Each structure stands twice: as C-alpha cells, then as structure tokens.
C-alpha cells in the first residue's frame, strides 16, 4: 500500500466535514476525496501545508507509511 492518508481520522477528531475543509484549503472536494480514498499519486507541499494549518497537525499525523505485509493483513 505504501503511504496512507489519515484524513478521515483527522476530520473526525476535528469535527470537520470534507466540504468545510475543501473550502478552507481551497482544494476541490473531488481532489480531497481522491486524497482521502488514497487514490492520489502525489501531494504538493502547498496542499500539505494548507491541510496541516487547517487541521492543526503535523505532516506525520496526516501521512502514514504502511508496509505491504501489514496492508495485506
């Protein structure tokens, strides 16, 4: 699986909807949905910065490395 985005957990913790976050970081809801469902191939530093700013977190809270063996389990 590789890099996993923990956006749904963070949104749940912050009591924020995807639509609200999309408006705050100025990214379309479609793109945020791609990010949330781990379909994105890359993330820009500017997007990461905006997400960390609005979610009040560190990049490490948003991104997680999942090894192939663990993801298969």
């Amino acid at each position: 699986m590789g890099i996993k985005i923990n956006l749904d957990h963070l949104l749940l913790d912050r009591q924020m909807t995807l639509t609200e976050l999309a408006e705050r970081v100025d990214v379309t809801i479609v793109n945020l949905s791609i990010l949330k469902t781990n379909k994105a191939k890359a993330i820009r530093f500017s997007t990461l910065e905006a997400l960390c700013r609005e979610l009040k977190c560190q990049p490490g809270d948003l991104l997680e490395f999942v090894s192939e063996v663990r993801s298969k389990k």
Partner: protein
Amino acid sequence: MRILGRWSVASVVSFFVSLTAFGAAFGAFISFCVLLAVPWVRLPITVTAPVTFTLDTPNEILGGRPGWGFEFRETRRPPAPRPPNVQRIAGSMRVPVTNRWFIAFNGIALIVILAFVAYTLSKLQGVLRTLVRGKTPFVPANAARLRFLGLAVIIGSLFVSAIVFVENTWARANLDLPGVTFDDLPRIDFGTIFYGLIILVIAEVFRAGTELDEDQSLTI
C-alpha cells in the same frame, strides 16, 4: 489557423478520415454483395488485380510481317549495349477471367483489405476525436489506438505484398504478355514498414505521456 479543437485542422482531417472510413466500409459491403453473385454471373468477367513486373523494350522490328512468321528484328551482338528495360513497376492488370476461384480470391482479398482499412481508420478517427473535442490526447485509449495503427500499417503492407505475390504467380502461369515479366519474388515495401515502426514509437511516447498526465492529474 487552429490546429486542435472545433473548426481546426484536426477537425478537417477527422472529417476526411471519417469519409474515407465510410467509403471503405461501404466498398467492402458492395464487394461482399458482388462476391455473393459470383457463382451465377456469366463468364468471363474482367478482374483488376495488383501486380509488379519488369518491362523489356522489344527489339526494333525492321521489316517483314509481324505475326506471319517472318520479321526482321534488330539484333545486337554481345559487345553492343543491351536495350533498356523498365524494372519493378507496380501497377494493376485488367484481365478477362473465367476461373471463379480466382475471382472469389480477388473478391475476398478486396473485402479483407477494405474492412481492415475501415477499421484502422476508425481507430485513427478515435484519436482525432479527442483532439477535436479539445480534451487531452494523452488517454490510455489513444496509446492503444496508435499501437494498433502502427501494427496495422506493418501488417497491412505485408498483406498487400502477399496479395501482389499471389497475383504475380497467377499472372506468370496464365498470362503471356510480350516484354512483360511478372516478379517472381515478394516485393516488401520497407518504406511503409518503417512508417509503421515510427507510429509504434509515437504510441510508446503517448503511453509515457498518458502516465505523466495521470500523475499530474492525481497530484493534489
């Protein structure tokens, strides 16, 4: 002058490609209908078939009566220059044929070629459609279409060479035209095969472009 989009060079090319594809498909249909009538048609019928041949210029007739067995031809001794001849002519022959199998072979070959041309042009039409609609041409389908076009050009060229070889073989066995020698070896069009290889390389470029475009569109 716009190259891509509506009312552009791409749209004009797309129109003519569509027209040619339709013409080829219609031609294949008409040929199929004609082929069905072959068993009942009165023979002989004239068949036009592609051939390649060498044309020897005949010795000059100096006198006598041609066809009566006494002609005075110009003769050249060995040191004298040979008369010029025209080699490797690609053309077509029109011959009255009484063999229904030969007629059927030509009909089937024509249908296969026309259907193949129509299908190949429909693939090209697919590539052009994405350009006319103003969308990115770097889609996986276009890479596959271009790969098919490249292979079609190569296989089509080899198929036509095979057809011409068969026609030449038939002509050598059945026709006796003075000065005309039908080729006894298949004539492969390396130029066309080279174009096909270039299209295959472009298809690979499109595949790489598609991957880049996908990466770019999935970068958030």
